[in-house]
């Protein structure tokens, strides 16, 4: 097990090197001029742009820029954003937790709803509940998230007045004292019921909307894995021995189908982090998706690369964690 983990972590280094080089090339291939952005945008004179270019080191050869960037990155310095003018590390510390909180909630919703739905669909295969469930899966995969988000705001905020339209917390409240960056967790740690409730209310709608696609994937994976296992001989034997159906499904079949389901749930976290940008825009959720889009639109190369490098690292690490978890759950998996 330890050897497996060590091998995966070592491979991670090469993944990150390749990723940083790819992102460097892509960022510099984007049209536009980050020196102009740093100098003040369209209003900046040619002289101000030239000065900004020198200050940012953008007048040096690309290879030199990359090597210098790599050297700073391994020391934890991702540079300074030309838009926010702050250290990118500080930006990421501020924006990443928002996305993590949103995607964690979305994955939780997707898992809590998707797995039972998948079980229901598998156990009642061919019946009305199976067809209805599969309709829900189709809806979840097909409906564009931005449309779903706007409809959700219209219904739950404008018409029913049940939930807020956006933001992470009521805008008249200051955020809870920063510990994790998760407003829900930080409110809990601070023992602040009011802020906790406000944070939860603001989290419900965007998390549900974001979970729609993952819910469908998880439910479908659960259905197909369970169906496969339910066809096994030992399940037939268990039924023949007179065990209750619930016991057969939950104790025997589901446990053996759990690994691929778990992997799917885990990987959805990474997928959703990357796909949260639309939901964040609709719900004014100040997360990393919004930050990345802003960086692209403003040719904020340092921020774009900082985001990409950090996100790639987290995604790769998540894959390692999921693989290790799968191996731990089922040591028969060959590594």
């Amino acid at each position: 097990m330890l050897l497996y983990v060590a091998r995966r972590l070592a491979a991670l280094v090469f993944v990150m090197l390749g990723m940083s080089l790819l992102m460097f090339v892509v960022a510099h291939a984007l049209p536009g001029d980050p020196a102009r952005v740093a100098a003040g945008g369209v209003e900046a004179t040619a002289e101000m742009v030239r000065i900004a270019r020198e200050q940012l080191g953008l007048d040096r050869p690309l290879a030199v820029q990359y090597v210098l960037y790599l050297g700073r990155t391994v020391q934890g310095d991702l540079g300074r954003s030309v838009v926010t003018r702050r250290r990118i590390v500080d930006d990421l510390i501020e924006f990443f937790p928002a996305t993590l909180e949103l995607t964690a909630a979305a994955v939780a919703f997707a898992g809590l709803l998707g797995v039972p739905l998948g079980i229901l669909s598998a156990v009642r295969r061919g019946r009305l509940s199976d067809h209805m469930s599969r309709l829900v899966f189709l809806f979840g995969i097909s409906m564009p998230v931005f449309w779903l988000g706007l409809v959700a705001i219209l219904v739950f905020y404008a018409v029913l007045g049940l939930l807020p339209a956006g933001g992470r917390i009521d805008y008249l409240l200051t955020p809870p004292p920063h510990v994790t960056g998760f407003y829900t967790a930080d409110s809990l740690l601070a023992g602040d019921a009011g802020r906790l409730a406000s944070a939860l209310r603001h989290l419900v709608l965007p998390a549900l909307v974001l979970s729609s696609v993952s819910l469908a994937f998880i439910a479908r994976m659960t259905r197909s894995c369970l169906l496969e296992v339910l066809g096994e001989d030992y399940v037939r034997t268990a039924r023949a021995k007179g065990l209750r159906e619930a016991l057969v499904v939950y104790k025997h079949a589901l446990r053996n189908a759990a690994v691929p389901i778990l992997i799917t749930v885990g990987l959805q976290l990474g997928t959703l982090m990357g796909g949260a940008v639309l939901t964040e825009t609709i719900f004014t959720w100040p997360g990393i998706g919004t930050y990345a889009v802003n960086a692209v639109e403003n040719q904020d190369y340092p921020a774009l690369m900082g985001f990409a490098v950090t996100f790639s690292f987290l995604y790769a690490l998540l894959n390692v964690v999921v693989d290790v978890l799968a191996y731990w759950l089922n040591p028969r998996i060959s590594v």
Partner: protein
Amino acid sequence: MKSPSVSENRWRVLAVLAIVLLVTGLGVAPAAHGQEKVLNIGLYIEPPSLDPHNTELGTLIRELANIYEPLIDVREKIGVYEPVLATSWTVSDDGLAYTFKLRKGVKFADGTDFNAEAVRVNYDRVMNVKRGPYAAVKQIKAVEVVDDGTVRLRVHKPAAAFLSTLRLFMMVSPTALRANAGSDFGQSWFNERTAGSGAYKVDRWQRGSVVSLVRNPHHWRGFRPDNFDRINMRVILESDSQRLLLEQGQIDIAQIISIDALPALKRNPQVQVVETEYAGQMYLLLNTALPPLNDLRVRKALAHAWNHDKYRTLRKGIAPRADGPAPNVMLGDGYTLTNAYPFDLDKARKLLAEAGVKPATTLTALVQKGDEQKRMLTEVFRDELGGLGIKVDFVEATWPAIFKRATDWSGTKDPGLNWHILAFYKSPDLWTPWTFLYRMFHSETQLHKPSGQWNFVGYGNPAVDRLMDEANLTMDAAKAAAQWRKANELIYADMPAIPIERMVEIAVLRSDIRGYKYHAYDNGRKLYLYELSRAK
């Protein structure tokens, strides 16, 4: 131990759901809408920085002008200025020295007195940071402290427009600057905190969420009872969300509203829609350096092909025709420029034939992604040109990509980067004809040149250059105005850009918001927060 049955599990799940609903239902109720002394604004764009010496000029004029103040500001009449931190001023005969008497009793938000030394400290800072208002402040050669209440600015060369640029030179507290200078002249500190003399100061800024302002207790004008105590500028980048929040009363001012939503909003008694023309102008730029547009007859033909009535209809009637190369209001009282190019396809056809433009000629139009107005007007133009047998290919790109392409073409004339037509918006960032005529049409401001600004079209006319150079240097306001007018008319005759539309600022507010005002010299979405109040 017996495992729970399915029905027991079901009750457990329901119990958990009930707890969750109860907790979320107990959440703090949505903030009392229309809290009297709190103003909520749906922002157009989040400011990149709160530093008045290191931010975009748009942010400076829009948001930061409520937090920081300059010595003087502009008024509607060109050449007349509003005293702000300076109460009076004199100009030396040679135009090289400006002496300002400073307003007494002004303090920054941290309690520091404003005086001549503060002006000098701010000048040094801008010259070191070299961002934001640097181009304007660079005109100043030296700042002399005559006494506490008097400061003299010496400039490198005389310029009638110098005073109009001072609105961009805003003052920060020297105490805050000295305490937080660090190694970057305080940029890290001022990026996220404020220390100005304006009516409001920043209380907190949650990036991506809200910039919250409170009253500056030291503000020299004092406060009326109906001034807002707190102003929340909320980052809501989706127009439909802003509209919903406005209609629900959760925000009082929406800065991003789709033009299609206006008819319904105008019918809503709880919403007021205020339309104010200002001096921003939209153009269709014509690349004068590239055939066939290097032929004046072709450019005139294209000008005759612009169908403004059709465009106005598509814009729901909100599209007054632009005046000329520069807005008339900048060129003196009573000045007008008659439209010499009415919509006339027959005339256009005749001119094209004279110029030898063959049927099925193809032109390339650069279209800015995400800007529905520019796309719309380019499409209208394409339709009319189609009637003349001219095909227009669209190349869609972001503004930075367009700027880069046009700059590269200007320098290299690479055929792969050819472009003929570009919809362009020019704001009245500086209240002087210079910002339109010089920046867009002087030969030295062609994009690829070291002094390049916004001469996208490669236009250059020695007579026009001479007039503008003289107008820049003269201290005689009447003479300068005459020279700018002449330059305006010569440029119009050369038609390097079709003046399309004078911009209309559309403010969408709750009906109970009072005091909203907008001027011809204001840039898009400017708000005077000190003037606003809520009706009881």
